[in-house]
C-alpha cells in the first residue's frame, strides 16, 4: 500500500533474535523526523534508542511496551495523515500474516555472518555489510578487549548507504589469539594485511580507543591507503589512561568482578548487562586470550601509562580528513586529549557520554562518520 512504511524490530549485533520496546518516547499520532528517537529498545545485552528511518506520522504503535518480539516483527506504522485508518489496519493484518509465514526464515538467513580469512598466517574474522554500495569501504576497528560487536549500532546504520567492514583484531573476538608484539605497528599491519587480502586499495578508517591508535598508526605508515580517519576516544594522544580498567579487565574472572570494570565504559551504568559481562568472561576463557591481552596491555599501556604517543606526528597527516569524537564523561581516557590538536582536525565532543560514544550516542556518531565519508568521497 502506497505511503505506508512499516517499522520493524531491528537487529542489534549478531546474537540478537528478539527484543522489546522498553518504552515509546513519542505518542501515536506524533509527527516524526528521520533520525528522531521514537522508542527505547531493550535486548538481553543492551538498551538502545530506536531512530525512525523515515519521516511522517507515527500512525500506530503496533508493539506494546515490554512485549518480546522477534527481529523483523512489526513494531509501528508510519504514514501521512491522508492515509485512512482502514488502510493502516489492512496493512498491519497483511504484514503480520506474511511475517508469520515462512518469509521470516528467509530474512533471518539473509543476515550477514562474519567470515574468517587467513591473513599473513593468522585467522582474522570480519563482518562485511553493504557490499552493494559503491565507493571505498568504511573499516571499523574496535579497542582493547572488544570485538566487532562493539559496532552493533554502528555497522547496520552505516551499511544502509556504505560498504562497511568490521574486523576482530588479533587476540580478540573470533580472530587468532596470536598478537605478535601486540603494539600499534603489529596491530595496524594486520589491518593493512586484511585490506590487501580483500583487494581494497583505500578505505575510510574508523577506530575506537586502542583501535583509534591502530587506525592512526596505519594512516601514518601507509597514507595512500587511508581515505579518512574517524577516531573515537582514541588512545595515543596522551599518556594518561585509567590503568585500573586494563588490569581489572584482564584479572576479572567472575561476573561480579567484571561488572564494575565494564561500568567504567559507560556514562549510563545501567547499559552494562549480565549478558555483556557473561560474553566477555566467555571470551576471556578461550585458550590464548589471557596471554594475548597481557601482551597487548604490556605493549601499549604498561604501568598505567600509554606507551606510544602519536600526537606529535598528527601534522604529518595534512591533507587527510581527520575527525575526533569523544564523550565528555569518558572515565578511561581524559577528554582533554582532544585539546590542542593541529588545525584541520575536526573535534566533536559529545555531551553526557562515556568511553563508548558509538553505543551511547550511536545515531550521532553514525551521522558524523557518514558525513565525513560522503564529503571525502565527493571531493575525489
Amino acid at each position, binding site marked *: 500500500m502506497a505511503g505506508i512504511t512499516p517499522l520493524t524490530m531491528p537487529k542489534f549485533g549478531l*546474537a540478537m533474535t528478539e527484543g522489546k520496546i522498553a518504552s515509546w518516547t513519542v505518542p501515536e499520532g506524533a509527527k516524526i523526523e528521520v533520525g528522531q528517537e521514537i522508542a527505547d529498545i531493550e535486548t538481553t545485552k543492551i538498551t538502545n534508542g530506536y531512530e525512525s528511518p523515515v519521516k511522517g506520522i507515527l500512525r500506530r504503535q503496533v508493539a506494546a511496551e515490554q512485549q518480546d518480539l522477534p527481529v523483523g516483527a512489526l513494531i509501528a506504522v508510519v504514514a501521512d495523515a491522508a492515509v485512512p485508518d482502514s488502510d493502516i489496519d489492512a496493512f498491519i493484518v497483511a504484514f503480520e500474516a506474511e511475517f508469520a509465514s515462512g518469509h521470516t526464515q528467509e530474512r533471518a538467513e539473509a543476515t550477514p555472518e562474519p567470515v574468517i580469512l587467513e591473513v599473513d598466517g593468522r585467522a582474522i574474522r570480519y563482518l562485511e555489510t553493504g557490499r552493494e554500495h559503491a565507493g571505498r569501504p568504511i573499516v571499523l576497528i574496535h579497542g582493547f578487549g572488544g570485538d566487532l560487536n562493539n559496532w552493533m549500532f554502528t555497522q547496520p546504520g552505516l551499511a544502509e548507504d556504505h560498504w562497511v567492514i568490521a574486523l576482530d583484531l588479533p587476540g580478540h573476538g*573470533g580472530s587468532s589469539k596470536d598478537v605478535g608484539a601486540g603494539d600499534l605497528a603489529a596491530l595496524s599491519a594486520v589491518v593493512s594485511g586484511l585490506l590487501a587480502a580483500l583487494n581494497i586499495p583505500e578505505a575510510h578508517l574508523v577506530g575506537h580507543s586502542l583501535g583509534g591508535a591502530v587506525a592512526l598508526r596505519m594512516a601514518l605508515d601507509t597514507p595512500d591507503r587511508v581515505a579518512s580517519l574517524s577516531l573515537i576516544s582514541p588512545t595515543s594522544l596522551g599518556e594518561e589512561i585509567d590503568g585500573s580498567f586494563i588490569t581489572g579487565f584482564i584479572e576479572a*574472572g*567472575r561476573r561480579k568482578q567484571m561488572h564494575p570494570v565494564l561500568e567504567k565504559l559507560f556514562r549510563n551504568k545501567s547499559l552494562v548487562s*549480565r549478558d555483556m559481562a557473561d560474553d566477555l568472561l*566467555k571470551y576471556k*576463557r*578461550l*585458550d*590464548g586470550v589471557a596471554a594475548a591481552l597481557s601482551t597487548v596491555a604490556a605493549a601499549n599501556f604498561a604501568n598505567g601509562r600509554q606507551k606510544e604517543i602519536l600526537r606529535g606526528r598528527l601534522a604529518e597527516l595534512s591533507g587527510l580528513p581527520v575527525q575526533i569524537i569523544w564523550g565528555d564523561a569518558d572515565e578511561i581516557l581524559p577528554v582533554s586529549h582532544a585539546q590542542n590538536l593541529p588545525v584541520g582536525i575536526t573535534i566533536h565532543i559529545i555531551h553526557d557520554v562515556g568511553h563508548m560514544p558509538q553505543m551511547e550516542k550511536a545515531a550521532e556518531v553514525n551521522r558524523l562518520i557518514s558525513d565525513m565519508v560522503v564529503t571525502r568521497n565527493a571531493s575525489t
Partner: protein
Amino acid sequence: MSKKSYRAAINEALRQEMRRDPTIVLMGEDVAGGAGAPGEQDAWGGVLGVTKGLLGEFGRERVLDTPLSESAYIGAAAGAAATGLRPVAELMFVDFVGVCFDQIFNQAAKFRYMFGGNARTPMVIRTMYGAGFRAASQHSQCLYPLFTHIPGLKVVLPSSAYEAKGLLIQSIRDDDPVIFLENKMQYDEEDEVPDEAYPIPFGEANLTREGGDVTIVAFGRMVKIANEAADRLEKQGISCTVLDPRTVSPLDTDAILECVQETGRLVIVDEASPRCNMATDVSALVAQEAFGALKAPIRMVCPPHVPVPFAPNLEDLYVPNADRVEAAVRAVMGFKARELA
C-alpha cells in the same frame, strides 16, 4: 561460535585436547567399536555416539576399545595416569561403577596422599547418569553423591553444551582424578559453543539468573528445569537466583552462602536419590553457616527414595520437574513464621 549439541561439544573437547596433547588416550567399551572384526571400524563411537569419529583421526593407539570389564580398564586408566599418560576412560553408565569402586575410591583417589604428594593421577572418567531415558533402574541413577563423598576426587556436573565443553577441557587438564558426569537426556540439547578450546575453572558456581526473592541451587540437568520454573515465576512477580555449582567437588560454598544471604530463601533441586545427596549437603551447609539469613525453611526438590521406575508414567513422576520446583518456591515465599508453632 555456533550452535552445537551437548554430544558434539563433548566430542569437540576431546578432539581438541587430543590434538594439543599426545599423552591423552581414550578407553572404554565400544568408544570406537568394531575392533578385531571385519567391517566398519568406528561402528559405535560410544553407546550414544559421543566419541564417534575420534578413531579415524587418532587411531587405535589412542582410542582403545576395552573388554567388558570396568574393574580392569578403570584400573588400567588409573595406572596409566600415574605413569605419565592422561587417560579419559568412559564408564558407559555410572550405574556400573560398583565393580570398580576399589580402583576409583581406594586407588586413584588416594595416590597423591599415599605417595606423599609425589604421585599425580590425571585421569578423567566420563560417565552417563540420570533418569528419563526409559532405561530402568540399573541404567538411570545419578550416584554423583557417592563420588562427592570421597576426598581426592573432583566431581563435575555440566548443565549445558557450553558448560560441557569447557568443563571437560578443564577435567582433562587437571592433575587429579575427575569424574565427569553427562546427563543422557541432554545429548541433543543445543547451545552456543565457541569453536576454540576454553577451560571453565572448577569450584566457581555460575549464576544463570539473578533475582531477589529465592535462591534455587540446581545440579546438572536440573539447572535447566530450575530456570524453566524461574521463568514462569518471574511472570508472577517472584524473582529467583538460579545457581549452578558446576562442580560438586570442589563446591563453591561461598557463592551459595552469598546468594542465600541476599535472598533469605533456598530451594535445592537435585535429581539424585534424596538421602545423603547434594540437596542434603547444601541444606546442612546453609543451616549451619547462614541460619540467621533464612526467612523460611529450606525446601529440597528431589525424587522419592525408590529405584528409578521402568513404567514410563511412574518414571515421569519420579524425576523432578518445573512444576515441582515452582511449587517449592511458592511454598517458601508463602511461609509465615507462625506456621512453625
